[in-house]
């Protein structure tokens, strides 16, 4: 196992072999040899005062550096972690409510179906279904594409929050901003997409894509990268028209900054619904047109 044989294949890698085969300071071996030659025991005692002094020093060094280098739990840090905790609790609560709402909606639909069956109001049921599809409250499936876009690779430095805090005001050309997603989604709608979701969040008339600091939020829910945009539409046609329109050129522009965008056509994708979609302030305008003629709900010429 010695490193001195001639012709060893790794003879030139002395640094690594030295490091791994002789981690022990050669001084120990040399000192032991010389002591043995002069008749003493190879090891010295453990009680020399110098040794004890150095041991104390080492101990002090360890604790001093541990205390000096610890990330201080400043007031700001504790406030921030408290806020994060509350945000996540609130979000978990919201997710629970969303599930409950979806469940209740299903039960209501079932009860209504039974009632419609009795009252032969199939027109109403069909209209309800048509509007749910249009508004985005129910999941849909069909042919389409999946567009994935992500920040430039060199940007990934999530472990350094201080850097983020200082530079989030500066424009980072490698980062995907909310306006980039606006442009892409806009382009997809223009190209004929019929339903779009980002990272599993359906885009509805009330969905807002907005940035808060480093994160992009859809409907107040932060997105994790990469951003996966799923769109249902005419196979082949949507991606071609998208490439031609402003959305496609925006994606092309982003490629100059190493922002990766990738479009894959699929025979079948599914876009989830947003069952919690509702109104708080807006009320319908009672109109003279009877509700049983849904075909008249069209824009006046």
């Amino acid at each position: 196992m010695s490193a001195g044989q001639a012709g060893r294949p790794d003879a030139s890698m002395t640094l690594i072999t030295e490091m791994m085969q002789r981690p022990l300071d050669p001084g120990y071996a040399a000192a032991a040899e010389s002591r043995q030659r002069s008749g003493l025991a190879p090891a010295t005692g453990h009680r020399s005062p110098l040794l004890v002094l150095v041991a104390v020093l080492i101990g002090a060094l360890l604790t001093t550096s541990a205390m000096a280098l610890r990330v201080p739990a400043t007031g700001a840090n504790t406030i921030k972690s408290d806020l994060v905790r509350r945000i996540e609790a609130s979000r978990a609560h919201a997710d629970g409510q969303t599930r409950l709402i979806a469940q209740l909606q299903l039960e209501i639909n079932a009860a209504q179906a039974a009632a419609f069956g009795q009252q032969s109001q199939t027109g109403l049921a069909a209209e309800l279904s048509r509007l749910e599809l249009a508004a985005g409250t129910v999941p849909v499936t069909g042919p389409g594409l999946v567009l994935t876009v992500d920040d430039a690779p060199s940007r990934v430095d999530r472990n350094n929050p201080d850097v983020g805090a200082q530079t989030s005001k500066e424009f980072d050309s490698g980062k995907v901003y909310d306006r980039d997603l606006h442009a892409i989604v806009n382009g997809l709608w223009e190209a004929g997409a019929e339903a779009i979701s980002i990272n599993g969040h359906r885009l509805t008339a009330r969905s807002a894509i907005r940035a808060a600091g480093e994160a992009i939020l859809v409907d107040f829910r932060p997105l994790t990268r990469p951003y996966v945009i799923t769109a249902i539409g005419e196979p082949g046609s949507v991606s071609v028209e998208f490439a031609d329109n402003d959305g496609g050129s925006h994606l092309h522009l982003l490629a100059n900054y190493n922002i990766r965008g990738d479009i894959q056509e699929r025979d079948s994708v599914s876009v989830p619904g947003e069952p919690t979609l509702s109104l708080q302030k807006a009320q319908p305008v009672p109109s003279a047109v009877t509700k049983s003629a849904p075909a008249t709900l069209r824009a006046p010429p």
Partner: protein
Amino acid sequence: MIPALGLLVGLAVGLFLHPAVPLALQPYLPIAVIAALDTVFGGVRAVLDGIFNDKVFVVSFLSNVVVAAFIVFLGDQLGVGSQLSTGVVVVLGIRIFSNVASIRRHLFRA
């Protein structure tokens, strides 16, 4: 035994006295700590190998710490501070692992 007690005393001293480290030296503290750990494990292995020598221990501790800090300082001046620091940490880390493995073989025969 006595040196181990000395280590504990040092830990307590550091904990209670809380000496202030000058800001200029703070970047070199982590490297100094790793170098110190390397010599400590080297010393324990030497004890188990039966060739411990206190003078060698003391000298190697001081020189390791000073040289490691100096290398990082030099690197900072040249602009490759973080890379050199990584290199030093890698080397010391490998040595620590080798020594610990040897200690383990002595103690647990495994």
